[in-house]
């Protein structure tokens, strides 16, 4: 079934109106040799059959409803309140197009306006856009904005090595035609001072991740000093932030960030095997006209009633074409709606509570693992909810054995940093119960002793 309502009688009537005898005649402009090719696809299925196929396919995976998981590294397992999916399931929201006709799109527009407001609240920035595809592409767009904001004369970008490796790759992919010079090195232990030392008059921006990819926090003063050093040479500070952590920790505005980006997936989106996610992007007022992405603004109608519209569209591709701030068109609007609902549901105190539970349980886990012979927890710097553990066996082997306990272990850091072969990044959230953590510790103890279940 193709969801097509036309009966043969309908088709006959339409063909008569058009004045052709068959549908095939409508394709006369298609080169004959290429017309109506054989397309080999599986035979169509009835709905019940496709549901069964998909269910079986999904059950070939191990999922987090059935296994404990200690993976973070840019995608986080947080509880999604039931209200979020119920709001997202309203088809007035999800079957709508981009709100170019604002009079009949106030639902989408106002919900995005609220989302923008809440991202500003979280980050301390003046303005937020309506979303990017994910945190990595938001970071790439921040680089492009910094290049433009520094009048196109600066080509150097200082990239902290402790930023998510895939984010750094995406930034390089996006800018491969722009002649950007990257600095920052490869040492994940390079701190804010080391980055500051690499700033000069050719720098457009310096980028850090907070907490960094290894879960760590530097001193706020160190980051503020980095911001000062950047501003002194006329460069921007871009901070990639973990939004849950912002429920507890000082927002990047407090230590001098100019642009804040990040992955919004923790705010009400399931892990989704990597997508769709949500890139949030917020910045200071001064840069608003260089921002990429859609912006919803408040206005009034002819009767003075408050309403919302897409605004400052002269930045965008449909108006400025090759001189647009970005090519972005469709973004992640429904995910932004999810984030708005999530933040409204948790509210001022709920988000802080989630952050605290993550912090406390992660520290409980770190303390317990530190007591397991053979496993060494890195505590040189404070961490939020992810921490580095040196393992007595290769990380992949540890994870293989953990699967026997129905546990999905942490991220193998050897993949990201040669100096961290044999180390694993554990993440703990409010979804890891105390019992689960105790089970993890018991399993690691057994693994460390060379045993299996």
């Amino acid at each position, binding site marked *: 079934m193709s969801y097509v309502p036309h009966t043969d009688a309908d088709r006959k009537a339409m063909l008569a109106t058009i004045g052709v005898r068959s549908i095939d005649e409508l394709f006369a402009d298609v080169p004959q040799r290429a017309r109506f090719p054989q397309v080999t696809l599986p035979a169509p299925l009835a709905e019940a059959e496709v549901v069964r196929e998909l269910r079986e396919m999904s059950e070939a995976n191990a999922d987090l409803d059935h*296994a404990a998981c200690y993976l973070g590294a840019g995608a986080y397992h947080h509880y999604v309140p039931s209200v979020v999916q119920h709001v997202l399931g309203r088809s007035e929201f999800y079957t709508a197009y981009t709100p170019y*006709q604002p009079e009949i799109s106030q639902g989408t527009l106002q919900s995005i306006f609220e989302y923008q407001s809440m991202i500003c609240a979280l980050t301390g920035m003046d303005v937020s856009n309506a979303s990017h595809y994910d945190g*990595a*592409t938001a970071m790439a767009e921040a680089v492009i904005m910094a290049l433009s904001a520094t009048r196109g004369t600066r080509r150097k970008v200082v990239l902290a090595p402790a930023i998510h490796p895939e984010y750094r790759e995406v930034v390089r*992919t996006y800018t491969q*035609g722009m002649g950007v010079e990257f600095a920052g090195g490869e040492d994940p232990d390079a701190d804010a001072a080391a980055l500051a030392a690499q700033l000069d008059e050719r720098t457009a921006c310096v980028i850090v991740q907070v907490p960094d990819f290894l879960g760590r926090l530097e001193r706020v003063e160190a980051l503020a000093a980095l911001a000062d050093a950047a501003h002194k040479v006329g460069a921007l500070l871009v901070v990639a932030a973990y939004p849950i952590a912002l429920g507890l920790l000082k927002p990047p505005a407090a230590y001098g960030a100019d642009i804040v980006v990040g992955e919004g997936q923790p705010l009400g989106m399931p892990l989704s095997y990597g997508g769709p996610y949500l890139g949030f992007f917020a910045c200071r007022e001064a840069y608003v006209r260089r921002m990429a992405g859609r912006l919803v603004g408040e*206005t009034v109608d002819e009767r003075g*009633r408050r309403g919302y519209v897409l605004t400052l569209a002269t930045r965008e591709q449909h108006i400025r074409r090759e001189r647009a701030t970005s090519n972005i068109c469709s973004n992640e609007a429904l995910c932004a709606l999810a984030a708005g609902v999530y933040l409204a549901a948790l509210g001022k105190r709920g988000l802080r509570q989630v952050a605290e539970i993550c912090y406390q*349980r992660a520290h409980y886990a770190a*303390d317990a693992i530190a007591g397991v012979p053979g496993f060494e927890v890195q505590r040189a710097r404070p961490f939020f909810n992810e921490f580095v553990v040196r393992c007595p066996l290769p990380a992949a082997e540890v994870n293989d054995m953990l699967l026997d306990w129905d546990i999905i272990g942490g991220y193998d850091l050897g993949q990201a940093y040669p100096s961290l072969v044999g180390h694993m990044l554990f993440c703990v959230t409010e979804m890891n119960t105390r019992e689960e953590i105790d089970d993890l510790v018991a399993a690691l103890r057994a693994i460390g002793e060379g045993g299996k279940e």
Partner: protein
Amino acid sequence: MSEPVIYELSRPGRSACSLPEPDVPAAPLPEGWLRGDDLPLPEVSEVDLIRHYVRLSHLNFGVDVGFYPLGSCTMKYNPKVNEDASRLPGFAQTHPYQPEETTQGNLQLMYELQTYLQALSGFAGVSLQPAAGAHGELTGILIMRAYHLARGDAGRTRILIPDSAHGTNPASTAMSGMEVVQLRSDARGNVDLDDLRAHLDDRVAGMMLTNPNTLGLFDEHLEEVAQLVHEAGGLMYGDGANFNALMGIAKPAELGFDVMHLNLHKTFSTPHGGGGPGSGPVGVTAQLAAFLPGPVVERTLDEELCECQDGEEHDATCYFYSLSWPKQSIGRLKAFYGNFLVMVRAYTYIRMLGAAGLREASQDAVLSANYLQARLRGTYPLPHDRICMHEFVLEGRLPDAPGIRALDIAKRLMDYGIHPPTNYFPLIVPEALMIEPTETESKETLDVFVEAMLRIAEEARMQPALLHEAPHNAPVGRLDEVRAARQPRLRWTPAES
């Protein structure tokens, strides 16, 4: 009929969430890092939260509410079984970094979707990573650029783009560091061959072409265009936004395209979401496959998994699916693998329809568009009087209603319970109204639309004020966009009233 902003419903102490009590010792929080009381998020009860969003939804028009003939957006019906499939916990609750042996279902789905898109398009390789059409365009241009650089040719820095192209085409080109060269369209809406020939030289990396184009027309010289570009050493990029006209009708790779993006949120029925998430997979010919962004999904026959006897055909369970990197990849376009849950929806759609169903969809999309064109051409100016594909463009102006513009017609359509068509695009038609019915609308719905358009044409002549002051029945009237841009209010602040 306005709904308060959620902050206006907020009261200190209210909450819509419940969280477990702390059950581990409290570790000291990092010094100097604690946020003060300054987390300005709303505080609402669950009932107020739900009512707020339900009422907001009532202010929205979606495909599930009514006819949405937005040209080039393909607002077809979004099947509900797709939504259910995307919510299966086996898909939704998987982390992208899980060991591959624990995500074989996901990897199999992605692999098979790659092959289905290859089957429809004729391309040899597909990346599912781009998250939207524009993202796919950026990918495609970067592939073309990398291809030429790998050949040792650093002089090809220009991309030819017709004047009818969507704004993302030149924007994507500029982002890749390439130069846009605009080409004229001829009187019949095709690429002007003389203008094309005049601009072809060894500085051209390639051409971006939407076909059918944004006028809804299949280029009558497509083969010659592709041949000319190839002879000049360039590549053909296809903007696949209009692929809904071509499923089972023609394969772009066989029409001369080298690289193309598809829009799963248009052709393949995944919902638009108010502006995303979409998905913009990119297909390439064999000579470009090495440049695709990574990772892609491959499969290998696994002797341990395979229980087939001699001569038996292998099925999905015989293979191990895994991520791999194309050998000269342009890099990653985003973190992880793409919008996976959007892929699940498109996959479900393709499995339900099969090749015959997809071809029927394209055939009926083209049939419905031609039907509307036939019924409206006598009333509204039709700049290109030809058989159209899945969409067509009218001029939104009438000879005996001089003050009426496309904007007025669009706003008046809202009063008839119909979403306006795309307007003021493509730029080459004045007062453009781009109409794309899609295949999922009944003839009755199409006829209601025609009746509305005819009535509006009548009103334009007899009672133009009805159009100028429209919409009359929408939650708000025409909004002051000038004010929104001159005095930007982009977030809620307490001083609002």
